[in-house]
């Protein structure tokens, strides 16, 4: 379970999150929606531990652990996974090499043995097949020259292999065509389980037709201003964010 209480964050003296509260239960898929600049991406970065963000107040607790006291790699080992909106390129490092390094690094911090090479390859091949990732893509340098759809599929592949307990999808639908959206969504849905929760950040209802959320939270001006069931997303799609922008101004 993830609990965020009264989170206040600024970057370069600009206040982005203003006392945000959010709870995501085990096995829950929570969608975060909201207009541009409402702090959605900042929230994902702060949970994952990106530098540059100054946390002024509040706490983020994942399964009893205080994430704010941990380094990004420790948070990853504790179960946090962030699927990036813009995945980074690592030139010269084959995707396979990267996957193995990441998996073994996490196993090491959890006190587990390294994976044997055959075991590793078996896992990767199985997961890659589900996401329709061809083998030659795994040999190419990570994300270098990948199309938008390939990058997002690679993110979900990593999510599948690292077996996190708390997954954040930061606008995973951006830049995806319909087929890629279907593949990615099916990949995510296959990972839904009672002990894994998701925070799905998106602008659009479209993604939520594929990944159906349990709860929907609307963010505005650095706070969750409304929470509801999946029907709230449909309402937003119909009415836009106008109501919430007003509340921001008020």
């Amino acid at each position, binding site marked *: 379970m993830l609990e965020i209480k009264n989170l206040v964050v600024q970057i370069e003296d600009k206040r982005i999150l203003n006392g945000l509260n959010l709870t995501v239960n085990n096995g829950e898929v929570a969608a975060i929606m909201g207009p541009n600049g409402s702090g959605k991406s900042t929230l994902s970065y702060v949970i994952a531990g990106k530098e540059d963000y100054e946390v002024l107040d509040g706490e983020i607790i994942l399964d009893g652990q205080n994430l704010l006291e941990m380094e*990004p790699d420790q948070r990853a080992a504790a179960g946090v996974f962030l699927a990036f909106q813009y995945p980074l390129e690592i030139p010269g*490092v084959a995707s396979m090499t990267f996957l193995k390094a*990441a998996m073994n*690094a996490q196993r090491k911090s959890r006190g587990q043995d390294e994976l044997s090479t055959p075991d590793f390859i078996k896992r990767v091949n199985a997961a890659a097949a589900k996401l329709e990732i061809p083998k030659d893509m795994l040999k190419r340098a990570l994300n270098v020259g990948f199309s938008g759809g390939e990058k997002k599929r690679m993110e979900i592949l990593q999510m599948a292999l690292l077996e996190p307990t708390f997954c954040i999808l930061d606008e995973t639908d951006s830049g995806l065509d319909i087929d890629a959206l279907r593949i990615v969504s099916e990949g995510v849905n296959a990972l839904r389980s009672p002990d894994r929760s998701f925070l799905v950040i998106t602008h659009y209802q479209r993604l939520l037709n594929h990944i159906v959320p349990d709860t929907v939270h609307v963010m505005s001006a650095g706070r969750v201003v409304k929470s509801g069931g999946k029907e709230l997303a449909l309402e937003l799609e119909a009415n836009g964010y106008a109501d919430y922008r007003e509340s921001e101004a008020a």
Partner: protein
Amino acid sequence: MPAVQETIDQVRSIDVDQYKYGFETEVEMEKAPKGLSEDVIRFISAKKGEPEWMLAWRLDAYKRWLTMTEPSWARVSYDKIDYNDIYYYAAPKKNPAPKSLDEVDPEILRTYEKLGIPLREQEILAGVEPERRVAVDAVFDSVSVATTFKEELKKAGVIFMPISEAIREYPDLVRQYLGSVVPVTDNFFATLNSAVFTDGSFVYVPPGVRCPMELSTYFRINEKNTGQFERTLIIADKGSYVSYLEGCTAPKRDENQLHAAVVELVALDDAEIKYSTVQNWYPGDAEGRGGIYNFVTKRGDCRGKNSVITWTQVETGSAITWKYPSCILRGDNSRGEFYSIAVSNGMQQVDSGTKMIHLGKNTTSRIISKGIAAGKSENTYRGLVSAHRKASGARNFTNCDSLLIGNQCGAHTVPYIESKNASAVFEHEATTSKISEDQMFYCQQRGLSEEEATALIVNGFVKDVLQQLPMEFAVEAQKLISISLEGSVG
């Protein structure tokens, strides 16, 4: 497992005990007086039992050297060297050698540990001098190993021996080629080396012979002998092939601060020489005190048509590196290649690169240089590509990439391009990049620690060059690069 250990195991299986004896005479230290003079050179030459022509050659070099001034164009700075305050032959140790590993800098020990070097070998590398060292050294110098390898090489007709021996045993060959690539008058440090060199390696591969082994294994055994002023000469006769590997990934304790080696390669028609170096000499402490000055002249001559010379280097050590392994592409259709990884951290200064001199027709060259600067180091690539007016169809491709880690280091690229032939095509690409915070965050988000992330990104950066190294060495070099950069982040 480092290859050295394999050698030890191999030697053990041959039964080393019989070679313990007759060793002590070798330990005796003989030394020339401090400083440089004609007498010292005569002393060195006499010690080596050299013929008269060799002495004359040395003395000639010395006279030249006296008229020369130390070069100052490199982007490095250091206190003036007093050349009369150096022992040029069998320098006695300034400090007593450590009696056990307990007395060795723990920092160095940690590095050994990370490289997975066995204790016994650590002692040798650290220069520990307990009684048992004799036996261990005997293993390394073991006549038996030398003989085993020598016999195999002899079968192939390859001559491989210390150059001092070659001067006595194959004077005609040595005389024909020594100084033919790096002339006695070439530069301040090469001329100094010509006057005072004490040893190094000599290789001759006869026509049509493919040398049956990487000359690394053997070389490692002999490495103890490589001194301050090393001289190496490799000749690949027509249609032959040889791969030679110099150096060691483990940092070596060395009393001599100034190293000025000369390496000459000669490739005749259709011959190929691959020369790989891994250099990890002591870089000095955090303030930059005490590291090695590595002022090396390395040059290959593609003398015959269709000949190929490839330099591959991984440079992580030394306080100052001044080194430009070069190729003279004299033969038509000859090819020169230079692959380099230069890592600098702490207070290290690197000024390194290559020269590709296109003289023959349709000659080609390729330069791939990867400089990585961290800490407060300065890392300069300096390269020359030139085409003589007769070098029609000359082609060069150069790619120089620099990677900066942190914000207190510097990377510089200084390419010189001279073309006197209109048909020459030279391409130059250069990039300077920094490991971005976003890349680091991405890797860390996947569970890699800061240091693991840096090592991974750096290894991706140098991949093109690592692939050029012999397999066993590529793995060690990769580890070495990670270790060299430890503590460079955060």
